[in-house]
């Protein structure tokens, strides 16, 4: 053997738990204390396997007559020519074997912007949340509300969001040891801001261009924004299998939307969340043309067929 060899003990999640360097072959693996690598695994044999070179100078892993033998990709065998990306399962322990000249992948581009973290982010979030809450309050201020009512709303909203952010920070702390309060605060603030902007913008567009659907299907954009917010919270936790999170969140979002659709259909016979567009904006917002009374009469005439179609002989059933 000419090159040093590394045997890595893996965790179930695919991380390296321990790494051993060897300059000599063979390497013995098993539960007994006369092995080179001692496995604290009741499913491993006392002398479970050996790493050695075969006649073709290839690295091999050979079973020494254990009960459970060796598994790779759920295939059980007594002999493997070692693949440096393979995980070999001895009992319940997983091993990866690489030589010193293993070609590692190129480094990833650091896309995380660490300015969006810490106290600066927390302050930006606080300001965004406050402004959003105060704007909502002001929009519906039809009487002379005094400053204390505004402050009360602010305290209520800030307390509620602080609870949400705190919960995420706690989970983050448990999982990765870091709190990242600022980042979670910023994500929550963005979610809140996006909801407020979408609500206003969508109903404005609906009113301006007679896009009634924008004003009557209100739940789904909300669900989507909520899901996106949760996705970013999850991504900030530093979980390894971040690829899968996308699909989990996507699946749950889709499920929630379908539940809403079914609920709406059962309660109102329509899929939409509101029976009609009920927003009103100043006249300056209107863009598209009004229809004439004759056109409306035609629309009303068409309703008769729809109403008749839903008639049932036994509506009780």
């Amino acid at each position: 053997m000419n090159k040093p060899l590394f045997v890595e003990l893996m965790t179930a999640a695919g991380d390296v738990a321990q790494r051993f360097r060897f300059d000599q072959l063979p390497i013995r693996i098993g539960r007994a204390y006369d092995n080179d690598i001692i496995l604290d695994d009741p499913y491993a044999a006392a002398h479970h396997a050996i790493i050695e070179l075969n006649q073709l100078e290839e690295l091999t892993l050979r079973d020494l007559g254990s009960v459970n033998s060796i598994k790779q990709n759920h295939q059980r065998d007594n002999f493997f020519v070692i693949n440096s990306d393979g995980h070999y399962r001895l009992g319940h322990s997983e091993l990866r074997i690489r030589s010193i000249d293993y070609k590692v992948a190129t480094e990833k581009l650091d896309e995380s912007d660490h300015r969006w973290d810490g106290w600066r982010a927390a302050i930006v979030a606080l300001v965004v949340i406050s402004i959003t809450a105060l704007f909502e309050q002001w929009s519906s201020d039809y009487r002379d509300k005094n400053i204390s009512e505004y402050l009360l709303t602010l305290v209520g909203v800030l307390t509620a969001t602080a609870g949400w952010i705190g919960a995420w920070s706690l989970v983050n702390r448990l999982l990765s040891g870091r709190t990242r309060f600022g980042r979670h605060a910023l994500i929550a603030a963005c979610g809140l801001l996006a909801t407020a902007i979408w609500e206003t913008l969508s109903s404005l567009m609906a009113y301006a261009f007679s896009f009634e659907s924008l004003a009557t299907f209100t739940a789904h954009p909300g669900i989507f924004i909520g899901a996106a917010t949760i996705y970013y919270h999850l991504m900030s936790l530093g979980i390894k299998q971040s690829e899968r999170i996308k699909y989990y969140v996507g699946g749950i979002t889709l499920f929630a939307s379908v539940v809403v659709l079914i609920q709406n259909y059962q309660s109102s016979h329509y899929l939409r969340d509101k029976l009609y567009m009920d927003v009103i904006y100043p006249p300056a917002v209107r863009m598209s043309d009004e229809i004439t009374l004759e056109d409306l009469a035609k629309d009303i005439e068409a309703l008769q067929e729809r109403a008749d179609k839903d008639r049932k002989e036994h509506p009780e059933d």
Partner: protein
Amino acid sequence: MKLFSLCVVLLSCCLSSATFAANNLPKPSSTAQALFEKAEKDLLKLRVLTKNGRSQSSVGSAFLIGTGNLAVTNFHVISQIALEPETYFGEYKNTKGESGDFVVLAVDVLHDLAIVRVAQKGTGFYHIPLTDDKNQLPALQQGENLYSLGNPLDLGFSITEGTYNGLNTRGFSEQYMFTGPVNPGMSGGPNITADGELAGVNVAHRLDGELVSFLVPAHYAQALLTKTPIDMQPPADFKPLIGDQLLEHQKVMFNILLSKPFEIKELGDYRVPVRESDQVRCWGDSDDGTEKKVSSAGISCSMESEIFVSDSLQTGHISMSHSYMRNKKLNSWQFAKLSGQRFANQVYSSAHSRVLTPAACTENFVQLHNVNMRVQVCTEAYHKFTGLYDFTLITATSDDVNSSLQSMMNIRGVAYDTGMKLVSEFLQSLSRSESNQKKIPLQDKVNETTEETQINSSTRSSTSSKISANKKDDRNE
């Protein structure tokens, strides 16, 4: 709603105290005594029971006509049998305690009458000449004593005394006003003159008044009896029959309503259509918003009668309302938001109704004579009655920054083309007052509007007037 329940509570309180004081009251007049002796023999108590479990669903009264086995009662007493014969059946009991099953033969939904057949013959006390000539019935004079018989609150057969007070013109089918006690359970019972002649049939009383009761005039019973042969077989299904009667009624009713154009009233900057007549009455209100950032005014009109088909279906009704709001101190964004809030939640889903189909709606921005509006029209068909529809129209002006008019019209039980015609006439009559163009500064205009709208506010003693059908709902037996 609170007023409604209050009335009912008061009524039952009075009744219980009356029971205690009964011994101290003067004896009934000898006329009533003499009448009851003869009249009770042909008096019946009707009960509608569920086939499954024989539990009581409604109780009313009836009376045998002539010496035959036909009895007259109210449609609302037996409506469940007519509409759901597979679930309900009827049982009668006379004053001697003899009982048997009854069969519904004919109904007149509009006048709330029905003919049933029982296994007992009358003594001939209640007699109606079987002709089309209603002059053969007794002519009534205002102030004349009348006597109602029946089974109030299912407590036992009773006779009550009151006076005849002319026709009630608030409905589309005429009813007599009887100033005397008519309680739930007496529905379908006879009302007779001091000579023992049939004057009418007990039908309803007002919950918000004292002793304001209503009778179906005897000539409607006469007309229905004339059309009902003594050996008639009951129809297999009453629903088409009821549907035809409702269609016929809506034609008459809306012909009257459509016979002349809507009246136009000024409301703020707008001219709005209303229909005020004997049958449809209007109320106004206004709030100059001294304490608030907007001032508002409104008119609402509603027909005071409707047709009882079943507990979940009252039809043949129209109502309309206008609500005007003028901005005083809000910015245009807030004012629009407030308008939107008022516009929301006015139409409810009828998807779970057993009577109506789910609402089919259309909504759009519509250009009218000189005003632009957001308009939404919904219609529902009746599952069991062909050709009848409900309409809901709501509108909100969309072309003024500082004033908003929102209107609503509700029509129940109308033919489709008539409904469409009403909707379009209503919309055509909505306009902006030409004289009030936006020349006047806002502050002045606010004052002007306030004065204007105050004219529309009329005093009214009660918020709503409700008529209760005298049917006793008693599910305990």
